[in-house]
C-alpha cells in the first residue's frame, strides 16, 4: 500500500477517533444554515411573490404571462441575449491573442508585471469603471474631441447612451477577466506538448491550431460561460452607459422595483432571467463533458 496507499490513507478519515456525529455537523451547519436561510429561503419567497398579484396579493400567473405577451419585456430579453453574445465573442477574440502574446512573446521575468498591469483597472470600482467610459464617450468627451479636431467628423458622434457604449464597457471588463483565465491556461500547458509537436514536424501555425488551441479550448469555454453569466445579470454597465434608450433585463427588473414597487413582477422577471442562465449552464456543462470524454 506504499504510495498507492492513498486509497487506504484517505479512507480512515471516516473513522478518526473523534466525537463522531456531533463535531462534523457542528462545523458545517452554520454555513449550511446561512445558505438555506439567506439564499434558498429568499428564493422560495421570490417564487411565491412571483405568483401573486401586485394589487391585492391574489394567486396569479399573470406576472409570467405578461412577460410573454408584453413585447417590450420580450425585447429586453432579446436585447440582453444579443448584447451578451456580442460581448462574449468580442471579448474572447480580443483577449486570446493578448493572453498569447503575454504568455509567449513577453520575456519570462516581465510576465508577472505585464499581467498585473493588464488587469490593474479590474480592481477599480465597478461603478467608477462605467463612469470612466462615460467620460471617454461623452458628447464632448475625449474621443469626440479627438474625432472632431482631427477633422474626421465635423459633428460629435452620439456614443454615450447607446448599445455601442454598453458593449464597450462590458468588453473592457471581460477582456481583463478573460486575459487572466486564458493566460493561466496557456501557462499550464506543458512545453513538452509544443516540443513534441515541433519534433513530429508541425510548424508553429499547425502546432498552434492542432495542439495549443484545442488544449486551451475547455478553459476558454469556462471563461466564456463566466462572461455570459456575469454579463447577463449586470445592471450597472447598461444603466450608466446604455441609458434608458434600450432596456436590458436587469434594468427592467430594477425598474419594476424602483418606479412601481412591483415586487411580484420583478420576482417573476428575475426567475425568468435565472432560468435562461440555468439553461445556458446545462447546455454548456454537457458540451464541456463531451469535450473531456
Amino acid at each position, binding site marked *: *500500500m506504499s504510495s*498507492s*496507499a492513498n486509497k*487506504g490513507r484517505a*479512507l*480512515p478519515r471516516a473513522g*478518526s477517533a*473523534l466525537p463522531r456525529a456531533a463535531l462534523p455537523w457542528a462545523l458545517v451547519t452554520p454555513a449550511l444554515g446561512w445558505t438555506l436561510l439567506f439564499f434558498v429561503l429568499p428564493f422560495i419567497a421570490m417564487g411565491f411573490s412571483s405568483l401573486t398579484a401586485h394589487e391585492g396579493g391574489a394567486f396569479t400567473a399573470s406576472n409570467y404571462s405578461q412577460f410573454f405577451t408584453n413585447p417590450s419585456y420580450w425585447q429586453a430579453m432579446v436585447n440582453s441575449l444579443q448584447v451578451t453574445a456580442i460581448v462574449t465573442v468580442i471579448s474572447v477574440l480580443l483577449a486570446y491573442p493578448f493572453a498569447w502574446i503575454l504568455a509567449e512573446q513577453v520575456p519570462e521575468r516581465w510576465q508577472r508585471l505585464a499581467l498585473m498591469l493588464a488587469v490593474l483597472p479590474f480592481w477599480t470600482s465597478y461603478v467608477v469603471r462605467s463612469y470612466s467610459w462615460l467620460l471617454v464617450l461623452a458628447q464632448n468627451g475625449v474621443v469626440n474631441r479627438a474625432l472632431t479636431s482631427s477633422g474626421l467628423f465635423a459633428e460629435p458622434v452620439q456614443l454615450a447612451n447607446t448599445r455601442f457604449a454598453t458593449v464597450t464597457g462590458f468588453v473592457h471588463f471581460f477582456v481583463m477577466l478573460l486575459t487572466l483565465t486564458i493566460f493561466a491556461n496557456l501557462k499550464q500547458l506543458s512545453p513538452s506538448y509544443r516540443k513534441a509537436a515541433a519534433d513530429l514536424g508541425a510548424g508553429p501555425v499547425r502546432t498552434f491550431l492542432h495542439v495549443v488551441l484545442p488544449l486551451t479550448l475547455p478553459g476558454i469555454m469556462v471563461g466564456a460561460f463566466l462572461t455570459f453569466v456575469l454579463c447577463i445579470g449586470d445592471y450597472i454597465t447598461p444603466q450608466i452607459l446604455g441609458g434608458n434608450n434600450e432596456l436590458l433585463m436587469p434594468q427592467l427588473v430594477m425598474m419594476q422595483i424602483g418606479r412601481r414597487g412591483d415586487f411580484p413582477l420583478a420576482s417573476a422577471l428575475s426567475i425568468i432571467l435565472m432560468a435562461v442562465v440555468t439553461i445556458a449552464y446545462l447546455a454548456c456543462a454537457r458540451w464541456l463533458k463531451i469535450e473531456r470524454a
Partner: protein
Amino acid sequence: MTAPLVDISSISHRFGQHTVLKDVSLQIEPGSYTILLGPSGSGKTTLLSILGGFVTPSEGKVFIRGEDCTSVPPAKRPTTTVFQDYALFPHMSVGSNVGFGLRMQGVDGATRAAKARDALALVGLAAAFDKKPHQLSGGQRQRVALARALVIEPAVLLLDEPLGALDLKLRRQMQDELKAIQKRVGTAFIHVTHDQEEAMALADHCVVMNDGRIEDEGPPERVYHRPATRFSATFMGESTILAGTVTETKDRTSTVATPVGPVSLPGALPVGAAVVLAIRPEHLVLGEARGGVRLGTAGVSDVVFQGSFKRVLAVSVEDPSLHFIARLPATATVRPGDTVAVSCDTDQIILLTD
C-alpha cells in the same frame, strides 16, 4: 512467559464491501523491530493504522501492555506514528516540531527545548533546531519526524513506509541508522514496507502479509530459508516453484513425483498428497549434475549480470511451464541458448504448505 507488548487478536476490517484484513492475529515483543512486509493492498498499512488508533477495526481487539486499546484515540495510546510524508508542521521550526508532543503534555519551555535538542542529537540533526522543515532534505525531514515521535517516549513506534520517499542510496543508509537508533532507545518499532531487502536488513521479526492475511512470520533468516507458503517464498526473495504428488513413503522419507522426475524429501507425507516445493536461486546447480537431486535439463533463456553475481533464467526441457531461477557466480560462463543439467541438494528443497 511475559505478556507481549502488543497483542493483536483476530482483527478483521472492511472498507465498505471490501475486506482488507481477514482474522489477523499478531504478538509484538518489547524492544523488537517488527517489519510488516507485503505488496500494495495486502492490508499492512491498514493494520498499522489500527495499531495507531486512526482506524477502528470492524472485528477483533488490540491490546497494548495488556490494556484493551481497540477504540482508544491515537493521542491516548502509547503509540506514535511516523507518517510516510513525514507530516512535519510546515509553519513551525524543527525544534518546535520536535517539542510539539511535549508541549501538548504541558511540559515547560526550557525542558521541552532541552529534550528536543537531545532527540535531534540522537538522530544526528542537532544543528537543525532553528531551521524550518522546507529547508531540510528528504532524509533530514525523515529524521526530524523520527525525533518528533521518539521524544514523547512511546512504548511502540509505528513507521509507515518511512523510507519510501527516499532514493535508493539514502534508503540503505537510513536503514542502518534506523536500526542503530532502535537499538539505542530500545523502543519497539513496527515498520511497514514493501521492500524485502529493507525487511531483511532491519527486522528482528518479519511478518509477511498478502491479501489481508499473515502468510508467514518469524526471524527474517527463518522466513527466507524456510518460507511457509508459496507467497512468502516468492515475495521475500525469489524461488523456483515445483509442484508434485507424493508417490511413496518409506523410512521417514517421501518420494514426490514432479514433471522433472522423482524427488526425495525427509519426513513422512501422506501418499497421494499434492505438494509444492521451492528452491532458492543460490541453491540451484546448473551445468554438471553435482547436486543429489536431478531436476532434468533446461534451456537458458536469459542471463542478467548483477555485479557480484549472475541471475540466470532457464526453462525446463521436460516441462516448459517450469521456470528455473538460479544465481551463479559472476565468473560463470553460461549463455542464453545453452542447454544445461539442473540439480540441487536434498536438504535445500523447501516444502511449502500450499
